[in-house]
């Protein structure tokens, strides 16, 4: 976190020291080990990719980071505070926000309300004011609406503002979900396969949005992605998992050249 650790990237972004350190995490379900003794860190301001073949434990790793799964061993240091497990609610209130592999939007609500939902933690007016609605609760609602509208503008989804999300095509749903995560103004944004199931054009759009988010708001991003091309394009550093273990960690080019990684992706027997 200290400034002496920070570096400038070629395109002028500032990357600081570690905002999160994952230390020796192991996670088991019953007898099955999903994650085995994994450590890595995420620096402030960077785009960190977590990649690996199917079943490598990537999503489980994200679930551990934001408190949905509680690891049996190891600890997580987030902004200098170490803990082994926390409730997802606590993670959210600490500034960890995320999207999901299979879009997990609130289907019964509009795009606008979904993104407003991302502001939940920032809204404070109590039950009494909510009951009356006019007055402070309304003022608060509109302050947050303004922020949400800026996100809508940012993601260029004005035309679907009031559409129920269930009716949107998949690509747009993913975008709305990103908007919802952004609405929380996270200091760490976790993206679980943000480009899964998209066509080339949608992938390009999404990559641009991710880069813009990182650039515009300086948000630290950890993302899981299958498309190696995309990862190489947008990630600052990459950690590679396979069968719940870390097999490589470094700059995209280094990782790409790593023999273990190549083996893992080609399916060499262990």
């Amino acid at each position, binding site marked *: 976190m200290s400034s002496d650790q920070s570096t400038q990237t070629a*395109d*002028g*972004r500032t990357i600081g020291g570690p905002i999160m350190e994952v230390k020796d995490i192991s996670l088991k379900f019953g007898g099955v080990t999903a994650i085995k003794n994994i450590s890595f860190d995420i620096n402030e301001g960077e785009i960190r990719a977590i990649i690996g073949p199917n079943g490598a434990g990537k999503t489980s790793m994200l679930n551990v980071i934001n408190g949905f799964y509680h690891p049996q061993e190891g600890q997580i240091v987030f902004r200098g505070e170490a803990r082994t497990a926390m409730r997802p609610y606590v993670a959210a209130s600490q500034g960890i926000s995320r999207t999901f592999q299979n879009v997990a939007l609130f289907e019964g609500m509009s795009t*606008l309300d979904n993104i407003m939902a991302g502001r939940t933690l920032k809204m404070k007016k109590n039950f009494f004011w909510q009951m009356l609605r006019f007055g402070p609760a309304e003022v608060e609602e509109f302050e947050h*609406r*303004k922020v949400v*509208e*800026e996100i*809508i*503008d*940012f993601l*260029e989804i*004005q*035309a679907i*503002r009031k559409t129920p999300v269930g009716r949107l095509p998949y690509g747009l749903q993913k975008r709305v979900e990103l908007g919802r995560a952004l609405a929380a103004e996270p200091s760490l944004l976790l993206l679980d396969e943000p480009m899964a199931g998209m066509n080339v054009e949608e992938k390009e759009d999404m990559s641009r949005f991710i880069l*813009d988010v990182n*650039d*515009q708001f300086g948000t630290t991003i950890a993302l899981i992605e299958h498309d190696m091309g995309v990862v190489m394009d947008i990630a600052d550093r990459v950690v590679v998992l396979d069968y719940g273990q870390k097999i490589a960690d470094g700059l995209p080019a280094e990782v790409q050249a790593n023999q273990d990684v190549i083996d893992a992706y080609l399916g060499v027997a262990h």
Partner: protein
Amino acid sequence: MTSATLAAQLDTIPKLLARNATTFGEKPASREKEFGIWQSWNWAEVHANVEEIALGMLAIGVKAGDHIVIVGKNRPALYWSMVAAQSVGAVPVPLYQDAVAEEMAYTLDHCGAKFVIVENQEQVDKIFEIPGQTESIKKVMYLDPRGLRKYDHRNLHSFEDIRTLGKEDQSRLQSMLAERQKVQNYDTTCVMLYTSGTTGKPKGVVLSNRNIIESAKSSSEFDDLKVGDSVLAYLPMAWVGDFIFSIGQCYWAGFCVSCPESEETMQNDLREIGPSYFFAPPRFFETVLTAVMIRMEDASKTKRRMFKFFMDVAKKVGPDLLVGKPVGFMDRLKYRLGTILVYGPLKNRMGMTRVRVGYTAGEAIGPEIFEFYRSLGINLKQLYGQTEASVFITLQPDGEVRPDTVGVPGPGVEIKIDDDGEVHYRSPGVFIEYFKNPESTASTKDPDGWVATGDAGFIEDDTGHLRIIDRAKDVGKMADGSLFAPKYVENKLKFYPNILEAVVFGADTDSCTAFINIDISAVGNWAERNNIAYGSYQELAGHERVLDVISGHVKEVNQSIASDPMLSGCQVHRFLVLHKELDADDGEMTRTRKVRRRIIGEKYNDLIKALTDGSKEIFTETEVTYEDGRKGSISATLQIRDVEVVARKAKAA
């Protein structure tokens, strides 16, 4: 107050703004849908904003006479920038936002712009792509900072920075601004607009304050435009029409200009705003009508029957009711009922409930389409104009609206037809010159101020209405010497919803032939209803049954043309349906979607040959440009159809 003293006081747009700020300070002047709601500014606020921007411009060293290029979608801040540029004595030059970098490079270089105001990153990128821009352009200013944070900001400023710079040195700059405004008058340049032109490089049309204000004034009076009216600004800012509506008339009459949120939401925004004064090219009205018909196809049978019944009633009596002609009691009653059940809701869906004055221009509009809107009770009219005339040459007065004319000369406009049939005009709106192009100026405008329109036409003896046949240079002779007016034929073809574009060839040949572009939404819908499967535009365009349908249309057109002895030689003997849509990116059309006949003729030379040599089909390969600028090619084998023609009567004269 005589018009002379009025003119003396209100002889620049900034002065009009100052008047509006004091006279209708609280009335809305600009709106823009942003962040989900209609942000609104009244005249006083607009005035303050323009001044703030103007001070900023002074702060970064804009000099009198500088050209300031403005690129972006319709946004209040960009309109304000134009007026701010005028206040500091500079000349605003709006450009088409979809222009590619090369086009932009040409205009920037031609006008020698030192300052550029753009909307967003996309436009900044285009500017920075231009080689050598760093030397010529001093400052680029942008509205939307998104994605621009890490750009080199030595010559790049956000709009907010400019405003701040102005505020920091307010007292000094304020007096400077007053100085600049003092020397401006009716003959100061108001704006420079590049005409896309059907041929050659774009020309910069210089329009003075007199041109713009006089035009705005007389046209506002013509249609009684006033405070409280409202328009939606969605047509390109670089187009003269938008400048006249959204700045000229708006500042003269003091009405409100609203800018849509984005291209996709335009229809919705139109409905929300419900303008009272509306302009759209024929293509827009055509698209909307097609959409209406397609959606009605899906309605239940009873609803369709009801719709048809009332549309027939409307067709019969609607136009008469609109101009207050006497109509029978039963018809009046039926029309009243139709207003409740069909016309009212339909206008509501189209966002045209409140349209008091509607105009279309630029091209001929299909009589069916035109009558449809009028029968609903929408006062849609036609006008004829040019950039060089500050838009207005002729307009249709209320009560004299017909689909086949373009109206009578506007207030202060004189018209004459020369021996070749070309239309000439003279008016207070006539442009000063083509920038840095005296030859063209001279060839277009004679010393007496008469301007050649380049269009062939005639004035109807009994009504005094002007009728336009075609581009003067496109009206040619066929091999046998009879008149060849391709556009006349093309327009007749295009009146069919299934036909998007048509290009007719026949100069110096024995018979006419045509390229047809099908309208994918209309034909696609038809195909769906008739269980015709197709995978692509190309496949649909080449389908036997589609060709049959088009063939039928061409035959009908031939019959209609044959009834006019002057033009009966223009009947289409053979045609083909093109395998791709004509596209501005491929240079086949102008940005305003006018066909570039010569370029098409060269590009598809092989097809034209096949049309004339009697072959039944032809294989061809065409280069196309994709949206992102990449090039590719498509190939197809096109069928050529012969069409029945009506035997020509003996030549009249």
